């Protein structure tokens, strides 16, 4: 199914969880913050929050800055 991740259309498996997506992106759950349809997803629920068609996901992390 198609969802939007960080502004781009991506194909993910039916019923994929946030944790599944992070795994394919190669990021540790502890290093990122995820917003699902505008709401921040608590880290402990990454494995239980399932995506549906058309969902918007933002995955962010800290980077260098001044």
């Amino acid at each position, binding site marked *: 199914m198609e969802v939007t991740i960080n502004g781009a259309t991506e194909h993910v498996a039916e019923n994929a969880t946030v944790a599944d997506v992070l795994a394919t992106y190669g990021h540790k759950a502890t290093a990122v913050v995820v917003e699902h349809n505008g709401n*921040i997803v608590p880290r402990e629920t990454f494995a239980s929050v399932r995506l549906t068609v058309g969902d918007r996901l933002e*995955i*962010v992390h800290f980077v260098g800055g001044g």
Partner: protein
Amino acid sequence: MQNDSLVLGGVVLKSRLFIGTGKYGSDSLVPAVVEASGAEVITVAMRRVEKSASDAQGIMGHIPQHMRLLPNTSGARNAQEAVRLARLARAAGCGDWVKIEVISDVRHLLPDGYETARATETLVKEGFTVLPYINPDLYVARACVEAGACAVMPLGAPIGTNRGLRTKEMIAILIEELDVPIVVDAGLGRPSHACEAMEMGAAACLVNTAIASADDPVGMARAFAEAIRAGRGAWLAGPGAMKARAQGAEASSPLTGFLR
């Protein structure tokens, strides 16, 4: 000087140098810069992750555990975006400090005072410890303080220019008028610039570009730390007179002659 500490958001800080993490030739320099600078506060930005991370560790892997993290909202173009970034940063679980940075003019990169004050108001209500990055404008600064900012961070010169304390007169007014610490941020290019800000009574300085872009960032971090200690020491010591207006240096037409 021994007991001179800065309290921000209930946290006692011994170092008055805050550092950034941007523009380094390699992020792996950060631990050595942290150590040389003695800094306890370090700022980071928040961005979307890349699809396949080359450096899986990211910047966080280079920041020592004891550092107080000051996430900034760079990239925000208005209050709403700054609030969103701040909430995301807090969700990362590294405390509730945030440096609000709202910039909608990408040519000059000057902060938008109106939007910054609005974001400050919202985030203070949500329990954040807020440090807004502003032009040294008394009205904007007051609005931020009234909204509950724990300090304000006026720029010394346009960001990244290394031009020094160009806004000195305006920053002096903030120091005089406001009851919160003034942290000079942006534009400080040389240790002498930071020293000058501290001599005037600034509470701290945030330095990023000047350290990151030096030939030897670790050496420059140490130099900034020393300059900031020197400037702070001078402020605490109370500078002496520069002109010969001491006792006995009577003017040619005394104004108090009528009393004799």
